[in-house]
């Protein structure tokens, strides 16, 4: 059986690579295989209709390959997706394929089937994955999971272009046009955190402050992580050395002490949806978020949505960084149909399928393969036309998940023990001296090294 499956997979890879295929009527590649069953735990997409498109693609592939596929859409609300993965990991049973949140490949890698062959096939065909997706999925010399485009997202600045232009004199649409060739390098180089602070003061004075949480939620990590990174601050380096006690950390904290004066006072109690509401309500003029806020605004406050422009983060002395939260697909080691599971994931990762899925998600799903950034959805979606063109990285931004480049076992703790927001909040809200807050963080990091 194993031999037969190997042979089938090879033929499928040829199909994918060469374009010539043993295709079915529906155009779905056919992999000859005896009747098998697969169960797939998928992330329950919040974009209306995205689940149906994915379900149709998976079901058609199953029918074409005589594989019975059971799909469960699992919401990430209330940590249900994480809890499902945790329960299946501990029980040693459940789905064959599971969607894993950002750090879960690290937590469950000892019970996951290596995906190296699938990942390498995709790299061979489409080029390298994004660095942060590689960091999270490639561990201990193997691909423990496959980067899942569905659900993966990044955190660009989401700016009310009308307010920033009028109140702060910053024209983000002109600076980051919907065509990378039209970018003015000088203007973009000048777009740094100092300029951003000056703009934040002005929009605050105009009554429309910039809003971002400093609390126990992922959004906090996904803007503070890039801000610290752009000043060269990474809590732990790849060798495991604690590097947070440095002057640059103090500089960023001082910067935040100033910036938070011009932000809403309640950001310390915000959750992941608070910044969305802040922008949609019309009270705010900028947030750092995927296009989900825009999507809801388009439904509830179309006049707000029409003024929202997604664009690059400000630059720091050590570069320009943007937060990202990639999802992954894993095949549990107890699955009886690992090869079929891998074939399905390989199929779902192909350009043809990705094209359909990105369209269905209205551009929310962020491909881990830069080769897919030329999808037209980000240029066409409106209003305003081109407002999401810069959602895929077009310029010099690097993607980061707070915790990088430390060993993943430390990274997950930096992220989910909320090291950065807590350290910053101790100063900006708690009144602690910056040096003491950094010392506290360094001591916490020492504890993360517990074996």
């Amino acid at each position, binding site marked *: 059986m194993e031999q037969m499956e190997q042979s089938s997979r090879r033929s499928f890879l040829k199909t994918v690579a060469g374009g010539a295929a043993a295709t079915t009527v529906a155009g779905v590649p056919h992999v000859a295989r005896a009747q098998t069953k697969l169960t797939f735990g998928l992330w329950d997409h919040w974009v209306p209709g995205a689940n149906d498109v994915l379900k149709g693609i998976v079901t058609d592939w199953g029918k074409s390959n005589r594989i019975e596929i059971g799909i469960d859409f699992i919401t990430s609300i209330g940590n249900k997706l994480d809890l499902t993965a945790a329960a299946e990991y*501990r029980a040693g049973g459940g789905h064959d394929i599971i969607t894993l949140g950002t750090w879960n490949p690290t937590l469950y890698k000892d019970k996951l089937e290596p995906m190296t062959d699938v990942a390498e096939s995709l790299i061979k065909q489409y080029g390298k994955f994004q660095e942060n997706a590689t960091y999270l999925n490639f561990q201990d010399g193997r691909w423990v999971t496959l980067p899942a485009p569905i659900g993966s997202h990044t955190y660009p600045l989401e700016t009310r272009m009308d307010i920033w232009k009028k109140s702060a004199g910053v024209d983000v649409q002109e600076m980051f046009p919907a065509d990378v060739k039209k970018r003015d390098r000088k203007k973009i180089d000048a777009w740094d955190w100092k300029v951003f602070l000056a703009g934040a003061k002005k929009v605050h004075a105009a009554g429309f402050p910039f809003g971002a949480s400093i609390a126990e939620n992922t959004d906090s990590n996904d803007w503070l992580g890039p801000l610290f990174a752009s000043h060269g601050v990474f809590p732990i380096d790849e060798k495991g050395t604690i590097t947070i006690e440095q002057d640059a950390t103090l500089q960023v904290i001082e910067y935040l002490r100033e910036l938070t004066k011009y932000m809403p006072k*309640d950001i*310390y*109690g915000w959750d992941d949806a608070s910044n969305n509401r802040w922008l949609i309500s019309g009270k705010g003029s900028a947030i750092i978020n995927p296009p989900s806020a825009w999507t809801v605004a388009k439904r509830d406050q179309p006049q707000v949505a029409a003024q929202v422009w997604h664009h690059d983060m400000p630059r720091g002395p050590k570069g320009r960084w943007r937060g990202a939260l990639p999802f992954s697909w894993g095949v549990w080691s107890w699955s009886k149909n690992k090869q079929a599971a891998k074939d399905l994931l390989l199929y779902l990762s192909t350009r043809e399928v990705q094209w359909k899925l990105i369209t269905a998600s209205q551009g929310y799903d962020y491909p881990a393969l830069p080769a897919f950034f030329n999808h037209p959805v980000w240029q066409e979606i409106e209003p305003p036309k081109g407002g999401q063109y810069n959602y895929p990285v077009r310029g010099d931004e690097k993607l980061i998940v707070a915790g990088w480049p430390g060993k993943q076992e430390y990274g997950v703790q930096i992220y989910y023990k909320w090291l950065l927001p807590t350290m910053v909040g101790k100063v900006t809200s708690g009144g602690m001296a910056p040096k003491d807050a950094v010392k506290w963080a360094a001591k916490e990091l020492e504890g993360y090294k517990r074996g």
Partner: protein
Amino acid sequence: MSPNSTAVDVAATARVRPARSLRLRLRSRSAVAVLMCLPLLALIGGLVAYPFFYSIYLSMLNKRETAFVGLANFAYLTTRETFWMVVRMSFLFTFLAVFWKAVLGFTLAVVINALPQRGQRVWRGISLIPWVMPLALSSLGWWWIYEPTHSALNWVLVVVGISPKPWLSDPFWAKFSVILVNIWYGTPFFMITYLAGLKSIPVELYESSAIDGASAPQRLRYITLPMLKNIIAVTMLFSTIVTLATFDIIRVLTRGGPRQTTHVFGTYAFELGIATGDVPLGAAVSLFMFPILAVSAFFILRGIRQSTA
């Protein structure tokens, strides 16, 4: 057996005896009682005893769950500043919540007990609503009331001329908010238990004390409280255990924030065990209070036994 019995008779008798003996045993009341308790024992064994001993086992493993480390996880926790913050908050949360639930529950019970019989039923029912609602659901309702930017409560405060409060954004107010929700949720339990206790106090005691000229506070001090002493002790013990294990309210309202200041054992254990995958350390956090609670329970229950002996 007679000397004339055949081998067949002997075998037949041997078959009959166990069957008859089983029937006889089943007829005894204690055997039936044990049989009827078996499903419950299986439930307690599977859902209480096994998880408890398994969590003790987990708390003594290393992070990867590959080696036995004894009490090292507990020792590690004592070196962490955040953990001691969790301990302080857990105690503060439990002490204030149980105290106010007891005070308000008792007051409500006395007031409802003093109402005419017909009115009591309605008030009893209304008072129980917070307790019968699913806590996760009511916590969501409270979240809407406290919501940092668009708080309904702040809207009301502003209307009546009071400045809005940072219900979930400031450590003091966040602690106040989560404790208040726990009091709101748990007071009906105290009320209904105390009300049942009040109903069991013979009316003659109050009548004779009234004839002797006892005032209302004296009747409360010398009749009601002594008669409810055991009920108060048991409810306080039970509520302390349950309140110390609070999870839903804090998870929904603050997720332990701001700055980790509202974490209690349950939410902190979740953060460590599920979010960062350190299940042994999470188990150690959740078991940390077990010895203190066990000793407290022992003395309180012994006190009750002695007073009723």
